[in-house]
C-alpha cells in the first residue's frame, strides 16, 4: 500500500473544486491538482489584475481554503499505475497515491480546420478568452468571433472588456434554432439572466446566425476573413479571428485508467452512474468529462463525486434532482447548436490538419484508422499528441482517435523515470 491521499482530484475547475470541498468536508485528506497555475478551470480562469465573479471566488475558496485540501497547481498527470498517478510539476516528476480518484479534467475546444486556420492571429473562441485573461493585448484590436455555442458570447464579452473592437459574432447555428433555444431558457433562470447580461455587454456588436467563417487570409498573420452567411459571402478585414465549435471532453486519463467510455456525438465521454462512479472501482468522474454540460452540472456532479468518494451516499443522493435539471440544459444546447454539415466540409485538400507535423487533409485519404495515418504521414505524432487533429478528424468523420498511452502529455524524461518509492506523499 502506497502512502497518499484519501481522495485525489484531477482538475480544479468547478467540478474538481466542488469534489475537493465535498470530500474534505467529510474529513478526507484531499489532493487537488491542475495543470494550470491558478484554480478555477477555464470557466473561472482568473484574470490578470482583476478579481473574479463572486461564485468563482466562493467555489475556489471552499476548496483551496479547506485545511483538508492540498492544492497542487501546475501539476500535469503523465501516467498511472494502480492506486497512483505519475505527475509532473515545475520541480519534477513524482507519484501521488490515492484511495479514491475523482477525474474532473474538463474539456477543450473543438477546433475545426479551414483554409487559413494556422495563421497567427487565429485562435479558438475560448482560446481568445483564455489568452485575454492571461494579459494578451487586445486594445484597439479588430476581432471577429465565430463558431458555435454560448462560449462565443462569453469570449466576446471578455474581449470587449479588454478593449477589443468587436466586428461581429458569427454563429453557425441557424436563427430558428437559436430562437427556439432562447424560448426555452426560462426554465433555467440563472442561464437566462447570464444570457441577458452578456447581450447587454455586447450592445452594438453584430450577432449573425447561420454564418460560418470559410477562410482566413493574410501574409504573416490573419488580415481578413471570409464569412458565409444567409445573405452570401462577406469579407471582413480584421486583426484577430477567434473561432471554436464547442467543447469536447478530455478523456485521455480516464481511458488510460481503463474507465468505460461512451460516444457523445463524434467524441467519447466517460460513462458514470448516478453517483459519478466510473466502471473502475474507486474512480469517479464529474463535469464536462462525462459529456459537455456546462458549469452548473459540473459543480453538482463534482459535489456528488466528492461525497461518494468520501463514502457519503446520502450527500450524493441529495444532489440528483438539481443535477438532472442542469443536464437537461446541456441536452438543449447540444440540440440547438448542432453543427451544420458545411462546417465539416471547410477544409480543402491542402488545408493542414495536423498542425504539429504540417500534414494536409489530402495526405490522409485512404487511411482507415489513426494508426495507419500516423505511420504513413506523421499525423498526430507531434507534441499535442493528436489532441487537436484527432478531435477534428473524429468530427469530420474520418476516424476516431486511438487509445491512450503514457505520457498523457509531453513530459520530461526525468519525470518518466521518477521512482515511485522515493516520492511518498503527503
Amino acid at each position, binding site marked *: 500500500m502506497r502512502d497518499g491521499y484519501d481522495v485525489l482530484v484531477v482538475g480544479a475547475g468547478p467540478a474538481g473544486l466542488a469534489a475537493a470541498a465535498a470530500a474534505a468536508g467529510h474529513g478526507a485528506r484531499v489532493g487537488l491538482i491542475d495543470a*494550470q497555475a491558478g484554480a478555477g478551470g477555464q470557466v473561472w480562469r482568473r484574470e490578470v489584475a482583476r478579481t473574479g465573479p463572486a461564485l468563482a471566488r466562493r467555489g475556489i475558496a471552499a476548496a483551496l481554503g479547506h485545511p483538508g485540501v492540498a492544492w497542487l497547481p501546475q501539476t500535469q498527470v503523465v501516467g498511472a499505475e494502480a492506486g497512483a498517478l505519475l505527475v509532473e510539476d515545475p520541480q519534477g516528476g513524482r507519484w501521488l497515491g490515492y484511495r479514491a480518484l475523482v477525474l474532473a479534467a474538463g474539456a477543450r475546444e473543438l477546433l475545426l480546420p479551414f483554409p487559413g486556420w494556422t495563421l497567427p492571429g487565429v485562435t*479558438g473562441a475560448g482560446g481568445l478568452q483564455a*489568452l485575454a485573461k492571461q*494579459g*494578451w493585448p487586445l486594445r484597439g484590436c479588430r476581432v471577429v468571433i465565430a463558431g458555435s455555442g454560448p462560449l462565443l458570447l462569453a469570449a466576446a464579452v471578455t474581449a470587449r472588456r479588454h478593449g477589443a473592437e468587436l466586428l461581429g459574432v458569427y454563429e453557425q447555428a441557424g436563427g430558428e434554432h437559436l430562437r427556439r433555444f432562447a424560448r426555452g431558457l426560462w426554465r433555467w433562470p440563472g442561464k437566462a439572466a447570464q444570457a441577458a447580461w452578456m447581450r447587454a455587454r455586447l450592445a452594438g456588436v453584430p450577432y449573425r446566425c447561420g454564418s460560418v467563417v470559410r477562410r482566413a487570409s493574410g501574409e504573416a498573420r490573419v488580415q481578413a476573413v471570409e464569412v458565409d452567411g444567409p445573405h452570401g459571402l462577406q469579407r471582413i478585414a480584421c486583426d484577430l479571428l477567434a473561432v471554436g465549435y464547442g467543447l469536447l471532453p478530455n478523456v485521455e486519463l480516464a481511458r488510460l485508467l481503463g474507465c468505460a467510455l461512451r460516444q457523445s456525438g463524434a467524441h467519447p465521454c466517460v460513462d458514470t452512474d448516478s453517483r459519478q462512479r466510473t466502471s473502475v472501482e474507486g474512480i469517479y468522474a464529474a463535469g464536462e468529462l462525462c459529456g459537455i454540460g456546462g458549469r452548473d452540472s459540473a459543480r453538482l456532479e463534482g459535489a456528488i463525486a466528492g461525497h461518494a468518494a468520501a463514502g457519503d451516499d446520502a450527500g450524493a443522493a441529495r444532489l440528483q434532482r438539481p443535477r438532472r435539471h442542469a443536464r437537461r440544459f446541456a441536452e438543449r444546447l447540444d440540440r440547438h447548436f448542432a453543427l451544420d454539415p458545411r462546417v465539416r466540409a471547410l477544409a480543402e485538400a491542402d488545408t493542414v490538419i495536423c*498542425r504539429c507535423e504540417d500534414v494536409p487533409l489530402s495526405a490522409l485519404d485512404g487511411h482507415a484508422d489513426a494508426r495507419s495515418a500516423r505511420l504513413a504521414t506523421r499525423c498526430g505524432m*507531434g*507534441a499535442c499528441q493528436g489532441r487537436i487533429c484527432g478531435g477534428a478528424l473524429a468530427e469530420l468523420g474520418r476516424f476516431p482517435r486511438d487509445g491512450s498511452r503514457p505520457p498523457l502529455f509531453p513530459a520530461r524524461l526525468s519525470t518518466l523515470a521518477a521512482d515511485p518509492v522515493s516520492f511518498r506523499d503527503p
Partner: protein
Amino acid sequence: MSAPVRLQINGHGVEVPPGTSVAAAIARLGLPFRRSVQGHWRAPLCGIGVCFECRVRIDGLAQQRACMLPVREGMQVWTDA
C-alpha cells in the same frame, strides 16, 4: 497593485503585471512565436496548454508552453524569431 515583473524576451527587456502569461508577454512585444516543421509562422491557438503552438525556449529549456507559465522575474525567453 503589486510591482511589475521584469523579464527578457529575445534579449528585449519587458515589464508586465504579475500573473501575465509568458505568451501574453510575447504578444505585448508583437513578436512571433514559432515556426512549424515546414517553416510557417504559428502563434497560440487554444490558450490552455493543449495545442502546443506557443512553444518557446524558457531559461534554456526548449519546447515550453508559453501559455501555461506565468512570468517570473528575470525569466529569459527566446522565440523562433
